[in-house]
């Protein structure tokens, strides 16, 4: 399946926060939306998920526009992993994951045994089966993020949209989330994630969309997009790409902020 955004312009009132943004994402790929705060990442995701109607342009799945779909149909294609998440009530982890089944259930039905098995399978897929009976509100930020990813797995949608999945995590836990993202892509999911810091461990096959003030700076494979010029332009600060080899001999491309006035 292929998710495309076609000249998407969206925003609030008259001033669009997103102008003429296009991208294409195949299942099995990762698209990292990168850019400074206020770059239009959230607006893009809100528009993709149908929270915000586009002012022009369209979001399509295999060429068919998503706009007219019911929330239930939409949820069968796109799942969402929100950023900050503090529910008002103390749900069990298993109940949180089960809510991923909502779009597959008739309006008046409750999830049954099969749904519960799917939820447990999703938790085990992420190695957090032991959290099932815990109180969700007592989990750490990283655990919550994994539970929400499990909920998205349980939703069985081909594409996952993750809004700044690592913004509140330390770097070891960020890395773990990034590993999960790359293994989900290997399983065939299309993953869209946003981050304001370019710390995602980009692989050559990953896609990058670089946004600045709602406009596309560059879009395409990570090797072409992640250049010193593009990053410096997007963040308004001098940046460079450093190539480094670790002790095991693997090379890493690291985005470094040089600081100082441009």
């Amino acid at each position, binding site marked *: 399946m292929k998710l495309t955004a076609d000249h998407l312009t969206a925003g609030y009132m008259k001033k669009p926060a997103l102008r003429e943004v296009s991208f294409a994402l195949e299942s099995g790929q990762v698209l990292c939306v990168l850019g400074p705060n206020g770059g239009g990442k959230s607006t893009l995701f809100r528009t993709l998920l149908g929270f915000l109607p586009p002012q022009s342009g369209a979001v399509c799945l295999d060429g068919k526009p998503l706009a007219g779909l019911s929330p239930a149909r939409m949820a069968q294609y796109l799942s969402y992993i929100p950023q900050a998440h503090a529910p008002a009530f103390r749900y069990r982890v298993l109940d949180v994951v089960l809510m991923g089944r*909502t779009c597959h259930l008739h309006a008046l039905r409750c999830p049954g045994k099969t749904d519960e098995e799917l939820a447990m399978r999703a938790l085990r897929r992420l190695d957090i089966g032991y959290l099932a009976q815990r109180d969700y509100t007592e989990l750490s930020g990283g655990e919550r993020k994994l539970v929400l990813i499990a909920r998205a797995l349980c939703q069985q949608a081909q594409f996952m949209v993750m809004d700044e999945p690592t913004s509140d995590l330390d770097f070891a836990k960020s890395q773990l989330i990034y590993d999960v993202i790359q293994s989900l892509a290997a399983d065939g999911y299309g993953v869209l994630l946003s981050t304001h810091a370019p710390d995602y461990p980009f692989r050559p096959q990953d896609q990058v969309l670089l946004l600045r003030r709602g406009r596309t700076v560059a879009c395409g494979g990570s090797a072409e997009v992640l250049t010193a010029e593009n990053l410096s332009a997007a963040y308004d600060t001098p940046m460079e790409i450093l190539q480094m080899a670790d002790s095991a001999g693997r090379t890493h491309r690291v985005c470094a902020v040089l600081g100082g006035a441009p």
Partner: protein
Amino acid sequence: MIWKRNASTCIDKSQAPGRMSRTVALLAVLSIAAVLGSFAVGYYKIPLSRLPGVLLGGASTELDVLVRVRLPRILAAYAIGAALATAGSAYQGMFKNPLVSPEILGVSAGAGLGAALSITLEFPYYITQTMAFVFGLAAAALCYLAARRVRFGQTVSMILAGTMIQTLATAMTTLLKYLADPNDALPAITFWLMGSLTKVDMDALLFSAAPMAAGFLILFAMRYRLNVLTLGDEEAMSLGIDPRRTRAAAIVGATLLSAASVCMGGMIGFVGLMIPHIARWIVGPQYRRLLPVACMAGGCYLLVMDDIARSAMTMEIPLGVMTAVAGAPFFLYLITRQGVERS
């Protein structure tokens, strides 16, 4: 996994399997006991041991008291408690706020105004009940319409609109009280506003039965979706429900329950706030478990409160006062606890 420590600790016992069926069974037994016991409570002494004899013994004054006076009152108390607790659970979820009660959309204040107007105009009791019901529904409808156009943050707009409607209705009720005849209309209004089941008879009960049944049916039918609604509009939508439509349906159900309760018993506060919290402590926030437990616990609670109200003193204590006296300290306790732990 990096954070696999304390894996086995903190398991939430309240949602363990088996707890739900035990709780439901216990509440069912409590409900039956409370209903049977309540027949023996009241000014006219009929000890519990004589109940079977009176019930089977054919026409007598005692039978008359039991069937014509106590039965409707017992049914009303249980139904109102169950309805307010169910409505409160639903409102708290859809407004994502555990401190919300069924009065939030101005249903009680609206109903109070309707009743006060009817009493001032010296309409008969059934008109008062009808007007209370209609004004209660109208207040909630106004709040909903005021907030309908808001795309996101609809719930906050609705709560604000509810506060405005409550203020307006209360002000107009105060004006009516000021203008009312201090000899008969004023005490009648005051008494109605305090909440009481003294005037409940079979007709009053039948009037409220249909909207109550409809309200229960709607909320119980959508019990699973209510959970999704507590996550907020955007997340609910991404999980596959239309948050505005789902909330509209829940508001209709909860408002029917509240209006049908208020028009029968006047303003009975705190049941709808307190019982959902207690129910959540017992079985957790999952609505499949919460609604039946809140429903039965609310029924038992209000029935026992009404028994105390009509038997503790020679003069009847207004039920609204009774529930507030028992409820307010609990509410304070809740506020102080809020900072430490959400319930």
